[in-house]
């Protein structure tokens, strides 16, 4: 690990003590920490010790920066873009200072074999200590021929880099669950990281792109506590993915009142009513959009009038039409199938009736039996 601590590094960068503490407070806020009522320590149950700015600061003062290797596969670099162009520069700066990105194809100034050689050196030097961040899905079809870097397949590069990693962080829906490349018919047999790497902790931060503050908050948690945060069944940090968009939506009261926008330019849309009828996937989408929002808390899709696409959930590209109500079935029977079912039913019914009739006739011709 790099010897100097995060704080020492920040001091060198010209960050004052005051700014440092402000950043720590912001980090604690992003992580959803320090929200407990101000009670004396002794009166709190032992499992509810408040983690506050002070603790975050102490961690950053004593811990060295974490080396990060950032791999990009079948991606659009949107997650990197979102992170680097995030409108909360202090926070992102802080995290970019807290971690030390040793390899990132898009951000690295150098190119070619020298960069690759550097990556290998870093992997060797920090074996078992570095965080591996993956952006983009991994094509597994045709021996991974659909995505190669420096002549090696994504699959190969990922397994190699994951071997020496302390943990793997999949950022964005592509790296988490396959994303757009995995959409039907999935020509490259794309997969998410956790489908391939099973012997290391894999943390998913899905979204399209992942919310920068969620990404930084998760990394901050790792740095402050030295452990991965609590995860849900899809390996997403519960702090950020514990609630649905619907649960925290500002348009929720309109849903309850049955006031829906029927199109994008009707009265309902102008009045800011619920977008459920326009295909909002908020009820089944777990993410922090409705709380953290984007662009310094300015807005998020539902607030600006567009239904949630469900971009932090697996297979969201195949989850029915984006503008089709969520209660609608995912696959409708085709007209031909319905026609065939009707025809089959009619023929079977007619045949069964014909058989029944001929039986009745036979019985009628036979000598009558006593019937009770």
């Amino acid at each position: 690990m790099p010897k100097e601590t995060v704080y020492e590094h920040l001091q060198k960068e010209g960050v004052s003590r005051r700014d440092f503490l402000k950043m720590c407070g912001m980090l604690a806020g992003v992580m959803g920490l320090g929200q407990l009522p101000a009670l004396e320590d002794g009166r709190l149950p032992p499992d509810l010790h408040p983690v506050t700015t002070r603790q975050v600061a102490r961690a950053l003062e004593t811990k060295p920066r974490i080396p990060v290797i950032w791999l990009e596969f079948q991606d659009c670099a949107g997650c990197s873009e979102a992170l680097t162009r995030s409108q909360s520069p202090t926070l992102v700066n802080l995290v970019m200072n807290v971690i030390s990105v040793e390899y990132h194809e898009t951000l690295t100034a150098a190119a070619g074999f020298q960069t690759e050689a550097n990556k290998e050196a870093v992997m060797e030097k920090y074996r078992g200590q570095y965080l591996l961040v993956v952006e983009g899905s991994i094509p597994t079809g045709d021996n991974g021929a659909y995505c190669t870097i420096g002549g090696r397949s994504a699959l190969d590069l990922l397994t190699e880099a994951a071997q020496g990693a302390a943990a793997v962080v999949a950022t964005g829906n592509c790296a988490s669950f396959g994303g757009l490349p995995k959409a039907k018919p999935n020509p490259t047999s794309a997969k998410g990281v956790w489908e391939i790497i099973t012997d290391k902790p894999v943390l998913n931060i899905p979204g399209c792109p992942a919310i920068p503050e969620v990404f930084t908050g998760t990394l901050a948690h790792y740095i402050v506590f030295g452990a991965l945060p609590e995860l849900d069944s899809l390996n997403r940090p519960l702090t950020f993915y514990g609630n649905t968009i619907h649960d925290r939506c500002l348009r929720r009261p309109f849903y309850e009142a049955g006031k829906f926008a029927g199109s994008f330019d009707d009265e309902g849309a102008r009045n800011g009513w619920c977008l459920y009828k326009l295909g909002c996937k908020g009820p089944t989408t777990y993410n922090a959009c409705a709380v953290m929002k984007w662009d310094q808390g300015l807005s998020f899709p539902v607030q600006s009038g567009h239904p949630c696409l469900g971009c932090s959930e697996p297979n969201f590209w195949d989850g029915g039409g984006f503008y089709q109500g969520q209660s609608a079935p995912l696959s409708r029977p085709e007209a031909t199938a319905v026609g065939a079912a009707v025809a089959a039913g009619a023929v079977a019914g007619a045949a069964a009736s014909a058989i029944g009739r001929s039986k009745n006739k036979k019985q009628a011709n036979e000598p009558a039996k006593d019937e009770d």
Partner: protein
Amino acid sequence: MDWYTILEFARGPLFKVAWLVFIGGMTYRLARVIFLTWKKDKVPSSGSKLNGVAKSYLKGFLVWPFVPWVKRTFSKNMVTYLAGGLFHLGLLVVLILGTPHMLAWKSLLGFGWPTLPLPITDWLAAVAIVAMVALLINRLVNPVMKLITGPAEWLNWTLVFLPMISGYLMTHHLINPYEKAFSLHMLTVDLLLIWIPLSRISHFMFYFFSRTVQGIYFGKRGVNP
């Protein structure tokens, strides 16, 4: 397997199969009745058949449900009459005028219609559920109902009740996470769709059939249905 995958299955391939079984099965049932041996109508009508059909429908929809004393069901077993009526009313309104259900119909039929606000459909759903429970208790305690209730009736009650209760719990977020509630609702709906053609729940189709046929007979004889 997580609930999300189960939901995708229940909303996707399973729903498709269930819907086709439902359509095919109901057509089969209808064909069985249509191809029964119909006797040729050789007797001249003493009244208008069309009139008979119209009266039969009007009475069925407007008179009997709301003027209970004309039917003996009311005096003999009030629970069946009231709870049965409320159950049917609640079910139909929620199924047709509930927003999520309308959107499901819209995707199947290609056109939609205005819906009722959630508080209204929600109360009707609650009423329908309470009515279902009342009907169950009635079946358990009423001596006559006990006699005519067999395994098929218990299964009918269960398979109708499950989608209703799971839908209600889903709307009120009483089962978490939401996709689990949604999955349970969809799975029970799929099960019900497959079961309807095999059971007497298919009466929702035959009701109109028998009402028409009876109306014709009554009209032909010139008597009031």
